[in-house]
């Protein structure tokens, strides 16, 4: 597929933009099994392979478990490795996600967020990547096609950063972002190469002189040390992410941070929400600001590691905060973003009121009026200091 730019802008779907980023990265190996709504990523990329536009070894496997297993094998051999999936595909990779991170293999995965069965549903929510939040992968979330495209490059740099060496996942909303055509700015191939550099693995399975072993067993006398080592790498990933995002901004003019804030500075009530729903929320913020209501938004971009101090710092002026979760932890206590944001705010004095609203599961629309309702409820809590309902489903 030939991609042409008009006035520096190119109309691409989220999937095509991610596939184009992968083409520009030209990874050594890509092992993937297409699944809705991320299918087009693998479809486009296999086109690039067939047309000789990349030198990537594309491994077409029989399942996502095999896809991640092949990625792990290739990464252990020292290759730069990428893949893409969604929903059940990510779920089938589960076992191997932990192995990739435990073995410290900087694989990059594009996850197009989709609901998990059952009931079966192909549309957007975050239950897939949220379920993988404790698997030791760095997670970057994207509001727009442009951001998803940019995040892919940043994910490569963060994952391969010498202080990190952990796999990274770029998440974008199924259909809403993956299938919407947006005008985006592409980066020149040459600039991509300069930004990501080359990857030199510390050890390679193919090194027959040293003959290293990957994935050896550890017993109670060493396992915990390896987990601490991994946990410390995840802690360092925040600094690496800041460094990479800064460099990205300097080179390409698009500034990114650990999270995005929108009209938050003097806000009394705020919404915290991931991905595309932030766009809808911003429209509601503008509308309510016109009425003189002090509302704002915080959209986490880096969810793993979770930059809790910075998030608490940004939200400390708010009196009431509603965290919107597009996934339910099924713990009878709300969604995963809520649990973490609320925990991050615990040490604040005065402590803001924090509520959770579960929205948009299985692709249910989240509209400006929904955001307005959420804000009005939060403003009421800000005024009275009382939360009427801590957790509830909206957009029903």
């Amino acid at each position, binding site marked *: 597929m030939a991609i042409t730019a008009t006035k520096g802008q190119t109309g691409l779907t989220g999937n095509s933009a991610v596939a184009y980023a992968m083409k520009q990265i030209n990874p050594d190996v890509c092992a993937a099994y297409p699944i809705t709504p991320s299918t087009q990523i693998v479809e486009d990329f296999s086109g690039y392979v067939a047309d000789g536009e990349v030198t990537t070894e594309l491994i077409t496997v029989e399942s996502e478990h095999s896809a991640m297993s092949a990625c792990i094998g290739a990464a252990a051999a020292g290759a730069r490795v990428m893949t893409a999936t969604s929903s059940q595909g990510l779920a089938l990779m589960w076992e191997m996600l932990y192995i990739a991170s*435990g*073995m*410290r293999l900087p694989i990059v995965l594009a996850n197009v967020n989709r609901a998990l069965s059952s009931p079966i549903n192909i549309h957007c929510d975050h239950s897939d990547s949220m379920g993988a939040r404790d698997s030791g992968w760095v997670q970057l979330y994207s509001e727009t096609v442009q951001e998803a495209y940019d995040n892919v490059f940043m994910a490569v740099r963060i994952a391969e950063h010498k202080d990190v060496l952990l796999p990274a996942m770029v998440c974008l909303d199924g259909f809403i972002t993956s299938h919407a055509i947006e005008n985006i700015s592409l980066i020149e191939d040459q600039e991509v190469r300069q930004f990501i550099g080359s990857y030199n693995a510390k*050890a390679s399975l193919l090194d027959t002189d040293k003959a290293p*072993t*990957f994935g*050896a067993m550890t017993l109670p006398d060493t396992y915990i*040390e390896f987990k601490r080592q991994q946990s410390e790498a995840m802690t360092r990933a925040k600094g690496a992410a800041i460094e990479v995002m800064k460099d990205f901004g300097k080179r390409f003019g698009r500034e990114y941070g650990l999270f995005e804030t929108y009209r938050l500075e003097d806000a009394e009530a705020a919404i915290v929400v991931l991905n595309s729903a932030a766009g809808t929320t911003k429209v509601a913020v503008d509308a309510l600001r016109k009425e003189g209501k002090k509302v704002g938004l915080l959209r986490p971009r880096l969810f793993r590691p979770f930059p809790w101090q910075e998030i608490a710092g940004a939200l400390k002026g708010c009196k009431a905060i509603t965290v919107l979760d597009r996934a339910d932890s099924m713990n009878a206590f709300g969604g995963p973003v809520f649990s973490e944001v609320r925990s991050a705010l615990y040490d604040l004095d005065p402590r803001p009121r924090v509520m959770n609203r579960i929205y948009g599961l299985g692709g249910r629309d989240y509209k400006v009026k929904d955001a307005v309702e959420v804000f009005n409820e939060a403003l009421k809590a800000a005024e009275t200091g009382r939360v009427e309902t801590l957790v509830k489903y909206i957009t029903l």
Partner: protein
Amino acid sequence: MVEKKEYPLGGVIPKGGTAHDYSTGGWRKLRPVVDLDKCTSCLICWVMCPDSAVVTEEGKMAGFDLEHCKGCGICAAECPDKVKAIKMVEEAE
């Protein structure tokens, strides 16, 4: 206990052959004992031992590497009927 800085990243064992340095013979309940007067050095036991724990010297059966022998008894069972040079004895004895 090894210091933290010595733990290889991601549990990668950076070189080959390290299993040799790790004693696993302690799992053994039965110990093979060879009667070298009976042994013909056919080396069937050497071929069959799943732990490469049969030791040879100059192509001849020379005993066992008890740091790695698990006491499975395969060597004793595979030693030809006419010879039966290996006996398994209780480690407890």
